[in-house]
């Protein structure tokens, strides 16, 4: 009912040709959710340190195979709108899909921004009633912008304290040095929870600090929150593959993993000892992993997830031997605030309502105190961030299983500046979007590249080594068992075309690799390859943002006509694929 009402109002606003990037009475009403139940959980995730409103294009390629085919989150474009019952062209459709992106982005304006999010959070809290709501942050909050990098995440800790985050878990938070992570957690006024981060036995032996020396938990595994006369347990699940997908050298004492058996033991222990009315997992597993975990573990009422940046408008109900678990994923870049209203009875969830609210900056007035804070933390860096490097004629974006246009610019910059035949660039799912006609600023480049291991390289690799890298990343994305997936998208390539059969076994997926001139890549031959974000050891080249900036200053105008996206084999018709050209 509530969702339909929201849609109706957005529809009215759009039909009336109202400029939705200016707050009006109808827009305000769109954010009035009717009260339901006795506890409200607010959830945002993967904002990647975007303090100000941005544009973010959702993917047109998010493939799933086997049991995952056609299932959320592997549904894009019109297929997703159909599943969600959302009309194309509406503000909500724009928030959820890439469809008609440029036109609708201009019509509905930028999304997210902490000042606008703050207004929405406060409104949702007021709607739930005093002391009856929680604000959960799924992580990937303290990284992703120039200011987060320069302040080592501290600008975001301050913003989250002002936003009123009650509980959080993490992933990219762990890409600062371990003592910086601990400082940030100490400065964070909410609770940082992670059942699956343990101090290694070796480190414990050497006297490393732990939340619980006996269990080895590096951080508090869960917390109990009281909402009115009801109590909710929130368990933290950090990204299980942090020391594999990101450098372990920053956090040598900590070991991760999914630890599904430990989740079950913890849920059983909490249910027996604390007797809460609901148990929720605040997860950074990624949605496919969450769906599998929900099918294995009993006693979880909900898994509120992130990592895979899937803005899913409807929750998925997963059956397990103990009942059903609600699985949600709340998108990225500050675009969405999820609202899970629970009707709690003694020790159980009687009923629930779930709404994924897009945060349209133009429809939510900025919170003054938060806006002032954001301006203040950015002030020392504004000049550097604002530098106009070039103007783009093409929409620049990253998100999707294969190369986005911004990735292509990064790869082209690497090949050009580093004098390489082939470029490799990581398939991160964060990075904001630039509209045609906009200036590409240093801030945009930093939004796409700002990590704590940004060094570039150019070195010789054999064709066999290049194939091995592509196969390895493809298996992280397309392994038929979600527990063996790491999230993230396929490594982006420049100067290289290939065919991929995502359904094939590891080692067989990548075929027919060719250079830009059409020459076949041979296993024994050596090629000059440039890249960045090396996880194993630090590379020696300039930071990637300097390489891309140099390229853009020189180009002045950006136009991407051709993407090095692979030709797909054995994919056929798949609801996770739309408007794709190889």
């Amino acid at each position, binding site marked *: 009912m509530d969702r339909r009402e929201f849609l109706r109002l957005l529809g009215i606003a759009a039909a009336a040709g109202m400029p939705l990037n200016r707050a009006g009475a109808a827009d305000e009403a769109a954010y009035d959710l009717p009260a339901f139940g006795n506890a409200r959980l607010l959830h945002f995730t993967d904002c990647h340190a975007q303090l100000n409103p941005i544009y973010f294009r959702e993917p047109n390629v998010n493939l799933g195979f086997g049991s995952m085919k056609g299932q959320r989150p592997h549904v894009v474009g019109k297929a997703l709108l159909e599943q969600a019952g959302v009309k194309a062209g509406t503000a909500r459709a724009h928030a959820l899909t890439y469809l008609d992106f440029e036109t609708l982005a201009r019509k509905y304006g930028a999304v997210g921004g902490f000042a606008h999010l703050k207004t929405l959070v406060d409104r949702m809290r007021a709607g739930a009633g005093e002391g009856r709501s929680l604000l959960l942050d799924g992580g990937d909050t303290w990284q992703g912008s120039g200011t987060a990098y320069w302040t080592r995440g501290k600008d975001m800790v301050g913003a989250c304290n002002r936003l009123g985050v009650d509980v959080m878990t993490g992933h990219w938070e762990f890409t600062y040095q371990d003592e910086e992570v601990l400082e940030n957690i100490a400065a964070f006024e909410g609770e940082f929870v992670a059942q699956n981060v343990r101090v290694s036995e070796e480190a414990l*032996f050497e*006297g490393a600090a732990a939340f619980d*020396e006996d269990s080895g938990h590096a951080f508090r595994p869960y917390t109990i929150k009281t909402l009115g006369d009801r109590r909710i347990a929130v368990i933290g699940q950090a*990204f*299980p*593959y*942090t*020391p*594999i*997908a*990101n450098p*372990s050298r920053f956090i040598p004492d900590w*070991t*991760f*993993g*999914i630890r599904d*058996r430990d989740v079950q033991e913890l849920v059983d222990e909490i249910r027996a000892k604390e007797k809460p009315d609901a148990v929720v997992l605040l997860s950074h597993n990624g949605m496919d992993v969450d769906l599998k975990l929900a099918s294995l573990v009993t006693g979880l009422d909900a898994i509120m997830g992130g*990592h*895979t*940046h899937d803005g899913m408008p409807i929750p998925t109900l997963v059956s397990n031997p103990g009942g059903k678990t609600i699985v949600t994923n709340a998108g990225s870049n500050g675009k969405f605030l999820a609202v899970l209203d629970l009707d709690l009875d003694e020790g159980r969830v009687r009923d629930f309502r779930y709404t994924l609210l897009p945060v349209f900056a133009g429809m939510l007035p900025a919170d003054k105190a938060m806006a002032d804070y954001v301006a203040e933390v950015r002030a020392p860096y504004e000049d550097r961030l604002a530098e106009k490097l070039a103007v783009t004629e093409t929409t620049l974006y990253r998100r999707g299983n294969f190369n986005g246009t911004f990735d292509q610019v990064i790869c082209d910059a690497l090949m050009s500046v580093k004098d390489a035949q082939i470029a490799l660039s*990581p*398939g*991160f*799912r*964060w990075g904001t979007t630039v509209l045609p006609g906009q200036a590409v600023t240093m801030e945009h480049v930093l939004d796409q590249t700002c990590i704590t291991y940004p060094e570039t390289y150019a070195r010789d690799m054999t064709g066999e080594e290049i194939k*091995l*890298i592509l196969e*390895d*990343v493809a*298996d*992280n994305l397309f*392994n038929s068992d979600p*527990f*063996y997936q*790491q*999230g*993230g*998208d396929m*490594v982006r390539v420049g100067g290289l075309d290939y065919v991929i059969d995502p359904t094939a076994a*590891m080692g067989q997926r990548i075929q027919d690799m060719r250079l830009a001139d059409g020459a076949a890549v041979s296993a024994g031959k050596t090629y000059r390859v440039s890249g960045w*974000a*090396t*996880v*194993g050891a630090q590379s020696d080249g300039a930071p990637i943002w300097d390489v891309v900036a140099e390229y853009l200053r020189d180009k002045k105008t950006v136009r991407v006509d051709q993407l090095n996206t692979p030709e797909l084999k054995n994919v056929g018709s798949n609801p996770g694929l739309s408007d794709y050209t190889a």
Partner: protein
Amino acid sequence: MLTTRRLILKAALAGAALAALPRTLLAWPEAAFTSDSADKAMQELFGSTATTASDAITLTAPDIAENGAVVPVTVATSLEGVESIGIIVSENPSPLAASFDLTADAVPEVSTRIKMGKTSDVVAVVKANGKLYSTSKNVKVTIGGCGG
């Protein structure tokens, strides 16, 4: 209390060092450890390659190894009469990674670190009352990076 635990651990390690006897004095199953296939190792160690899959064995290992050079593995079982526990990494050049002989009073739970060259099934084989039982789990070894 923390100090106490560390002292106990250190004492235990010292004890283990003292108790380590030269290989020649023990029944070191060299042929099993140098076998180049899982079947040969099984044959050498247990005299058979036939095992019964068992839910009574719990094999704890990561889905994806954080470091292939030191993959933590724990095998525990509720089976009675356990004589030995073997850990086999099918795809390793020498698949037999560890073999523990247990006395009758020992709690059948062992932990160790194994080295894995590439993605492989890890098989826990338990010999109990003269019979062989097993369970396995695929552990992925990846070159890492590119996580979103």
